[in-house]
C-alpha cells in the first residue's frame, strides 16, 4: 500500500483569479512533478477540492466570490480541513498573515514569490501530511 502510494503523483489545486499567475504556478509545479488543477474563484475552488481531494491547495487571498480565507473555512466545514492550504497574496495589509495563520494556513507567501522557497515548502508540507496517520485514512477513504 505504502509503496503504491509513493508512485501516485500528488495533486495540487491552485485557486487564483489572475490567469497569468495561475499559469506560471502550474508550469512550475508540473515541471516539479505534480498534477495541477486550477480554479479562478473560491466557489469553483471548493467544488474542485470536493471532487478531486487534492494533496495541497495554493490559494490567493483576494478572490472573486469569497476571499481565500473563507475558502479555507468552507473546506473545513466540508470535512476537508486536513488538506493543507498555502496562501499567497500581493496585498501587504497588516494583520493578513496573522489572520491566515490563525485559520490554520500551512504557509504564507507574498507576491512576487520566490519559486525555490515555494517548491521547497510545498514538498515539505506534502511529505509531512503524507506521513500523518489521519492523512492515510483520508486518502484510503476516498480512493475510488
Amino acid at each position, binding site marked *: 500500500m505504502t509503496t503504491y502510494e509513493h508512485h501516485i503523483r500528488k495533486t495540487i489545486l491552485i485557486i487564483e483569479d*489572475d490567469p*497569468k*499567475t495561475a*499559469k*506560471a*504556478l502550474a*508550469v*512550475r509545479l508540473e*515541471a516539479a512533478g505534480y498534477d495541477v488543477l486550477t480554479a479562478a474563484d473560491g466557489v469553483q475552488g471548493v467544488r474542485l477540492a470536493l471532487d478531486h481531494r487534492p494533496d495541497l491547495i495554493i490559494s490567493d487571498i*483576494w478572490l472573486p466570490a469569497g476571499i481565500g480565507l473563507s475558502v479555507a473555512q468552507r473546506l473545513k466545514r466540508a470535512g476537508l480541513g486536513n488538506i493543507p492550504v498555502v496562501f499567497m497574496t*500581493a*496585498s*501587504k*495589509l*497588516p494583520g493578513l498573515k496573522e489572520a491566515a495563520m490563525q485559520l490554520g494556513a500551512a504557509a504564507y507567501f507574498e*507576491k*512576487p*514569490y520566490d*519559486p525555490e522557497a515555494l517548491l521547497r515548502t510545498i514538498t515539505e508540507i506534502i511529505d509531512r501530511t503524507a506521513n500523518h496517520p489521519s492523512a492515510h485514512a483520508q486518502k484510503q477513504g476516498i480512493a475510488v
Partner: protein
Amino acid sequence: MNYMQSSLRILHLEDNADDAKLIRRKLSTDMPGCEVHHVENEEQFSKALESSHWNLILADYSMPSSHGLDALALARQLCPSTPFLFLSGMMGEETAVESLKAGATDYVLKDRPARLVPAIRRALELAEARERREQDEEQMVRIQAELQKSNEDLRRRNAEIQNFYHTLSHELKTPLTSAREFISIVMDGLAGPLNETQLEYLGIAKEGCDQLGACMNDLLDATRLDTGKLRLDFKPAAVEVLAQRVVAAFGPAAARKQLSVRTEVQPGLPKVPFDEHRIAQVISNLVSNALKYTSSGGEIVIKVGFASSTSELLQVTVSDTGCGIAKEDQERVFDRLYQVRAGDAVTGQGVGLGLYLCRELVQLHGGRIWLESTPGKGSAFCFVLPVTQQLLRSNVLIVDDDPVLLEMLSAAFQTEFNVRTARDGLEALKEMNRQAADVVLLDLVMPGLDGPTTLKEIRKNWGAVPVIVHTGHVEGELMDQVLTFSPFTLLGKPCSPKRLMEVIRKVEHGMDTAMWKKNHHNVPKPEFQHKL
C-alpha cells in the same frame, strides 16, 4: 463701539409729561447725540418695541394706567438683551430687588437725577460686554465644529490614501508576479535550453522586476509613515545575527560585481529590542546602496558593535570604498525623494525613498542614522539602536506661538526626544493626526485655536495622552477653561529646558506627582506648581 457718540436710541415710557421733558433735557445736555423717543402708555410702548430697535429702555416704575413690571415683562419678551432701567419717584429696597429679579438692569430714583447718565452708561457697557461674550462663545462653538469636521476629513482622507495605495500596490504586483515568474521559468530551463547571453538578458529583466517590487513596497511604507500607520513589532534579538543573514543574501550580487563583502562583529553584544523585519530592511537598503555605488574590486564592510560613546547604544556601520558623497549632499541624502546625482545625471535608481525610510525606521526605534563620507574614497552609513526599551525616544510635540521659544526648546529637546513643533492649536491637531505624540507641551494663549480648545480636541481624539500646560497665565479664565480637560501637568513660564525635560521624562512614564485634576482635593498649591 462708543454709544456716547454714535446715534443712541432710547425708548422712554413715562405717563407724566413734565417728567418726560425733564429727562429729555437732562439727556440732551449730558449725552449729546442720543435720540430719546417718548411713549405715554403701554400700547404705544409695545408698538415702539415691535417697530424699531432700541439701545436702551427707560420706564417709569409706577403709572396709573399700567405697572412698570408689565412693561418690563413685555420688553424681556420682545428684546431680552436690551438694557432696561426703571425710573421711580420712590422705590423701596424691596421693590428695587423685585424689579432686578424680574430682569431690570438697574433703577434710578427721580430725586437723584445725577445718577441717571452714569447708570445708562454702565448699563450700555454691560450689554455690550455681554454681546461680545455671546459672539465669542458662538465663534468658539463654530470653530469647534469646523475643527471637528476638519479632523474627521483628515482621518477619512488618511484612510482613503492608505486604501488607494494598498489597492494600487496589489494591482501592480499581480502582473509583476507572473512576469517575474515566467522569466524565472525560462531561466530555469523549463521552456528549453538557453545560451549564456539569453540567460544574462533574462537575469537583467528579472532584476528589473525585483526593483519594481521593492519600489512599490517602499511607496507603501512611506505612505504608512506619512499617515502614522506604521507600527513596529519589538522583540529582543541579536542585531549581528540579523546583519549576517541580510549580508549573506547579497553574496551572489557582490560576487557578480567582484566586490568583497564581510561582516565584523564585536563579541559579547546583548540582545536588543527591535523590529526584525524593519531593521533588516534598513541594513538591506544600506548594503544594496553600497553595492550600487562601489566599483568592481572594492570592499564593503558591515560592522556591528557598541557605539563608541556609550554601551547603551548598538551601532551598525556599513562602509564602502565607493565614489563617496559630496559634502553638500551629505545632509540631504536622507530627505524624502532625494536622489544623489552622479556627475551630471541622476543615477536613475530608485525614487529616493530608500534612505528616507531608513531614517524614519531607525528614528521610530528611538535611534539615529548618519553618514560619514569622503568623496572619491568612500562612505560609511551608521545607525544606532538603544540597548534597552526605556531608551526609546519619545515623540514630543511643542505647541507655542512664540517662534523663538519653539526653536530654543526643540534644539534642547532634540538631544533626547523626537521633537515636532506647532505654532497654534490647529497645526498641533494636524501634527497629532499625522502621528500622535507621546507627550504634548501646550501653551494656553495662542492666536486661532487657544490652549483649552486644543486640549479639548486632544482629549476627545487621543484620550489620556500626557499633556504639560506651559503658560504664563496660571490663573484666569483660560486656566479655568483648561481645567475642564484635566488632568495635565502645569508649568509656569518661563521654565528652563532642563526642567521641562525632567518633567517630560516623568510624565511620559505616567510618573508625574503634580497632576492637576478638576475638583481634586489634593491639588498642590499654585506656588509649588509655579516653581516646578
